[in-house]
């Protein structure tokens, strides 16, 4: 056992005092007759919500520059997005119609399922090989056979609109940030905030500006999916070999030529990673966007969740996953293909574009023959399969036979793990908590970080959300502890054992592709609503980075150090304890950091199962369309995320400096 030095003893003592204070906090404040210590008096609250709400009202009703009012601008944006969206929607889902309502006449029906499936198969073969073609083909056939086709096409239409706008807009913003450091300094904190504020919080203002409907949903999706593209663009451009930049300038390029003919093509491989991110985030948003009017698969899941119809919810959820897998693999293969060498075939246009020709011929054929046989246009309902009943039965069976077991597990965790944490956190007097956070900030990153931590915590306090914030910290903290306890050993195992690694990777991949809502359904069915259900859903959702980073950290420990250890006669266990784990610590910390971020973003979603934290506050604000309330709660979550992120990053940096991995 190593002896503790003085500062470590001080830290330990402070932590102990905090816990004791928390545990007896309520009794103490009662005894001292100072309830304000644990409960911030409502008279001291600054009504930020009201300010924001009235600002929002002013923006919608009165704001104008000359004759152009703010609403005109939002309407113009909506119109711009609406045109291509309606086109794609008509093409994929509704067909081109004339007239309205019941008089509507279909002039040209939507593209037949046969054509769409052929097209994706052709695309798969074009991008990589027949294997990929088979995979994406199977995915789309699944959608048809399981009766999800119509909803899936609506979702696909919104993806097809949101991705180009998100990726293109992100590219342009990223280029601006690369060209003008001032712009980067402005946009960088905005992006930070956008990525940490839960998406629900800005659904409300969007709802105000664009009204309920698919356009609002698209706007929200684009706002959510664009930030990573901006970042990746800037990083990719900065990552271009400086020699290539020098070459471009020596060749006498103008600024524009340098950007579009040298830098962007050279960075295209990394840029495609960004596009892939946009696609995945767009699909992540599918369900949430349906809360403000997107139809399609997301709406199906949400509706099923509200009815607690596990079968239907699960099927639609899986359909989202299937669609995501198909689109993701296709876009990845496309990116790879762009980075690869290929030689253009010669010959006429037709012989060079056989796949396109085939799809076009099929399209015309199905449109013409579809007049006589509707089977060619729409997959027959009679041939669809549903597994809904199976899932319902399974859950019912489990509930009937294992109810006591589930209940026992739940009670055990609640009594011995969750409730103690909650009591302590809610009991800590807020002046002490803020002081401790400030001290921690100062210890980890100097006075700037101290100021940030203290400032943000105080803002949460004065906006009157302290106890809700503490519930958030408790739920998030408990989940992160659990995710770390499970995830880090799994990651270590994955790194050290090849076979286990493959299995664990598969598990993590599956967990990550499932949309966050899908976790909720089975857990709710087994454990019903409440904090424990939320805990499990969050742990499942946030497990991946803990595993990934731990595995990566362990794998990237330098080979020489391992050999040095072996030569000194370390056993496997000693090797792990004295060399691998300490060296991987910075990576593991970063993984925990990511876990916290994911946990916080999942919190809002778990509000659906009745937690009482900031997530619930945001969710209520959404249902009541209360901009101020939603934004204040959303910002509070963002503040918690930022505090955790900065503290952990500072810690990881200190660890890296200690190991000489960074100066």
């Amino acid at each position, binding site marked *: 056992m190593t002896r503790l030095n003085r500062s470590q003893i001080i830290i330990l003592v402070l932590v102990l005092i905090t816990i004791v204070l928390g545990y007896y906090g309520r009794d103490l404040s009662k005894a001292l007759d100072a309830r304000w210590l644990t409960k911030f008096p409502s008279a001291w609250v600054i009504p930020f919500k009201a300010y924001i709400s009235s600002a929002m009202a002013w923006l919608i009703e009165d704001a104008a520059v000359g004759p152009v009012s703010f609403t005109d601008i939002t309407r113009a944006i909506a119109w711009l997005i609406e045109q291509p969206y309606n086109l794609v929607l008509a093409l994929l889902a509704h067909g081109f119609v004339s007239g309205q309502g019941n008089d509507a006449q279909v002039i040209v029906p939507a593209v037949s399922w046969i054509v769409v499936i052929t097209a994706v198969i052709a695309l798969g073969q074009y991008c990589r090989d027949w294997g990929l073609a088979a995979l994406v083909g199977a995915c789309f056939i699944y959608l048809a056979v399981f009766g999800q086709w119509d909803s899936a096409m609506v979702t696909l239409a919104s993806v097809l609109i949101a991705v180009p706008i998100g990726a293109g807009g992100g590219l342009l913003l990223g280029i601006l940030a690369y060209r003008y450091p001032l712009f980067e300094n402005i946009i960088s904190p905005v992006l930070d905030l956008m990525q940490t504020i839960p998406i629900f919080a800005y659904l409300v203002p969007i709802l105000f500006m664009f009204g309920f409907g698919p356009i609002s949903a698209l706007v929200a999706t684009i706002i959510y999916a664009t930030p990573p593209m901006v970042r990746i663009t800037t990083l990719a451009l900065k990552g271009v*070999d400086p*020699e290539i930049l020098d070459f471009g*300038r*020596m060749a006498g390029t*103008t600024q524009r030529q340098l950007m579009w*003919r040298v830098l962007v*093509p050279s960075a295209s491989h990394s840029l495609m990673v960004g596009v892939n991110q946009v696609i995945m985030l767009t699909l992540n948003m599918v369900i949430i966007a349906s809360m403000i009017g997107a139809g399609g698969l997301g709406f199906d899941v949400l509706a099923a969740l509200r009815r607690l119809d596990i079968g239907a919810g699960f099927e639609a959820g899986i359909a989202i996953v299937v669609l995501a897998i198909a689109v993701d693999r296709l876009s990845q293969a496309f990116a790879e293909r762009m980075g690869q060498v290929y030689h253009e075939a010669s010959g006429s246009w037709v012989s060079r574009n056989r796949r396109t020709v085939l799809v076009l011929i099929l399209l015309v054929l199905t449109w013409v023959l579809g007049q006589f046989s509707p089977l060619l246009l729409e997959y027959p309902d009679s041939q669809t399969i549903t597994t809904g009943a199976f899932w319902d039965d399974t859950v019912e069976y489990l509930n009937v036979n294992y109810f006591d077991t589930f209940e026992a597990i739940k009670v055990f965790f609640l009594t011995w793990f969750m409730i103690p944490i909650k009591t302590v956190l809610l009991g800590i007097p807020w002046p002490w908590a803020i002081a401790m956070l400030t001290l921690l900030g100062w210890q980890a990153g100097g006075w700037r970080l101290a100021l940030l931590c203290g400032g943000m915590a105080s803002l949460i306090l004065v906006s009157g959300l302290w106890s809700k914030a503490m519930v958030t910290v408790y739920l998030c903290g408990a989940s992160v502890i659990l995710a770390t306890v499970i995830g880090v050993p799994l990651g270590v195992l994955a790194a050290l054992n090849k076979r286990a690694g493959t299995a664990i990777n598969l598990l993590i991949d599956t967990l990550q592709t499932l949309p966050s809502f899908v976790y909720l359904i089975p857990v709710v069915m087994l454990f019903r609503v409440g904090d424990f259900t939320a805990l499990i859903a969050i742990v499942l959702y946030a497990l991946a980075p803990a595993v990934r980073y731990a595995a990566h950290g362990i794998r990237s420990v330098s080979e020489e150090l391992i050999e040095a250890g072996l030569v000194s006669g370390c056993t496997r266990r000693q090797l792990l304890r004295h060399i691998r784990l300490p060296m991987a610590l910075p990576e593991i910390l970063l993984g925990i950091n990511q876990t916290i971020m994911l946990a916080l973003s999942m919190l809002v979603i778990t509000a659906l199962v009745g937690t009482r934290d900031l997530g619930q506050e945001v969710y209520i604000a959404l249902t009541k369309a209360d901009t101020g309330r939603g934004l204040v709660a959303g910002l509070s979550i963002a503040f918690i995320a930022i505090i955790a992120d900065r503290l952990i990053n500072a810690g990881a940096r200190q660890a890296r400096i200690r190991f000489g991995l960074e100066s």
Partner: protein
Amino acid sequence: MPPKTKLSCRNVWKLYGPNAERLLKTTPNPTADDIRKAGVIGAVRNANIEIAEGEIFVIMGLSGSGKSTLVRCLSRLIEPTTGEVLFDDTDLLTASDKELIEIRRHKMGMVFQHFALLPHLTVLQNVMFPLTIQATPQAEANAKAHEVVELVGLKGREDYYPRELSGGQQQRVGIARSLVTEPDLWFLDEPFSALDPLIRREMQDEFLRLQERLHKTIVFITHDFEEAVRLADRIAIMKDGVVIQIATPEELVMHPATDYVAEFTKHIPRSKVLTVGGVMTAGAVGEEDPIAQSTRVSDVAERIIAADAPIPVSDSSGQIVGSIDRKAVAQVLFGDGDVA
């Protein structure tokens, strides 16, 4: 008539750090101590260079000596903190962006250490790139590109992508690309350092062969003293941002300015540096086939040692100017320095 100066720089400084400009304003000629005290980094300190037309001028220095920064100041890829860079009597540092683009499009070419080929273009498209961006007519650009590709020996590989080529071949593409605009001034930034020794040697020969045909004014950067000696008409040696000595290879070996320079020259076989003209005895003697006075001693040592009588030495016009015998050669090969 001495050859015309093509490129020169005067009092060029490049300092990095927040106080760089203020320091040079208050102390126009700061010492290493001044620089350190001001908290700035001196990448290039007071460089003065004159490069003559048609000359191969090598800048030699170890990593961190500032040689790359200096060549980027000469091409204004990096803005020097102060100083003057004259190219054909235009001051590059006061040229507008537009003028600079014109100069780079038509008068300068550059080859890079890691080739800097555009990965999404084929060999031919890469070579054509400098012409494409100045909107040269397609047919003309095509013809020129084919011509230089053939010049560097890559005919038949026009449609390959860079990653399908070996390092040596990639650098040939880089060389072809830098020559396609027929520049007067040719920068080569450690062009062969990323290649393995055998290929490096081959490329050096290739480079000398090209220069024999093209007669460019060349600024060549290297960290390899042997390479410098092999290729250079004159060498500038840099250390810590300062140009310590500018001289022909022969002068460097014979009269190193500092111990630092001597440290490099010590390990170079002098027979590979010294020319016959440098060690001959003046006055015409002997009747055999004359040796050109610019020949390196090592290339003819065997013949001279095998010969019984002194062998005549001729200058570039073929006139016999002196003779060389066994003893002189032996002294170069085995002596400890005090020749000539």
